[in-house]
């Protein structure tokens, strides 16, 4: 974990991936709620 965090690019990629996954999940939950 420290190895990834120690590299700025690695940290950046992991954080972006995590954010997109969370956004995707939230969006999918909301979409399921909205779609008839």
């Amino acid at each position, binding site marked *: 974990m*420290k190895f990834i*965090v*120690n*590299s*700025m690019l690695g*940290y*950046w990629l992991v*954080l*972006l991936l*995590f*954010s*997109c*996954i*969370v*956004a*995707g999940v*939230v*969006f999918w939950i*909301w979409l399921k709620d*909205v779609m008839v």
Partner: protein
Amino acid sequence: MFEFAIAGIQAPIFLLMITGFTVGIVGGFIGVGGGYMVTPALIVFGFPGYMASGIDIMHIAGKSVVATVRHRQLGNIDWILGLAMVGGTMMGVEMGVRILNWTKALGLSAIALLTGSVVIMLGLFIYTQIETRRAHKRIDEISEAGVTVGRELKATRFSDFWQSIKIYPIVRCHVARIIISLWVIVFVGVCTGVLAGFFGVGGGFIRVPALVYVIGATTHIAVGTDLLEIVVSAGYGGLRHFMSGNVDMVAVFWMILGAMVGAQFGSIATAFVRGPAIRYILAYSLGLAVVGAFFRLIYLLTGQQYMFLNLFAVVFTLGEMLFLCLFIGSLVLFAVQYRRGKWVPAWIPALVVKED
């Protein structure tokens, strides 16, 4: 879900508040309104396009007041620079809108506009990223030599040329510590205003780099001063949209509720970091916005057939907002850890300020 009577739709209040909160953090930190992130999100929530723009610009005006007050307390506003630029920007925006109307009458399509804004954002991203990496390396080298580095090193020498133009009146910007011709400030304001008016954006992501690389202000001053300018331009824009019936004030209220808190966090976070950290976040927001806009462009160019492209663009835009907030939060967390002498990644010391 809440019934928004003016917009004529139902939308989740929670998502509006979260959107306002995340964009508030980013906007308070890098000095942008965040319209290029919020407007697509509002359209996804179901607001009609014209109303998404109106709600967005109205919420930007409110959020920017909060962020400006906080930045004033942090000493990041140069009033002379800000107020001189406001005049030029308002003129430029009006010119930009008229040029847009003229080109639309000649047959310029929405796709061409989107392509143009992608090209500009891409260019700004590449330049800012390269310059910031260079500054990051320089700070590392200077620190290793045992010299104490302040909050900022000079970004480029390009600003020396503009500061050397001696057309009266020449003003002394005390907070920004520059002496520059008033006409240069107005000219830069007009140019950024034309781009903002033409592409229909607030222009913060153009104006902050202009203040740093052309005028020669430090990044913190550029952020605070730009937010002051956004209060005026977004306030005027919001008023015009309101008069045109493009604003659902209830939706604005919920967004500002989140944005007011977010803007505080974002503004205070600037006190923990050096200039290059803010420029990194600005570059990332531009780069990621280009990716989202690129997918949207492909979706439009393929005749809106492939829905997954549009959905991917939306998820990426929402993910980008969360990513930027998490990155800003990480910078503050690492800054606090660094001050306490704990372990931080190797790339952190050059980006954060050790003492207040």
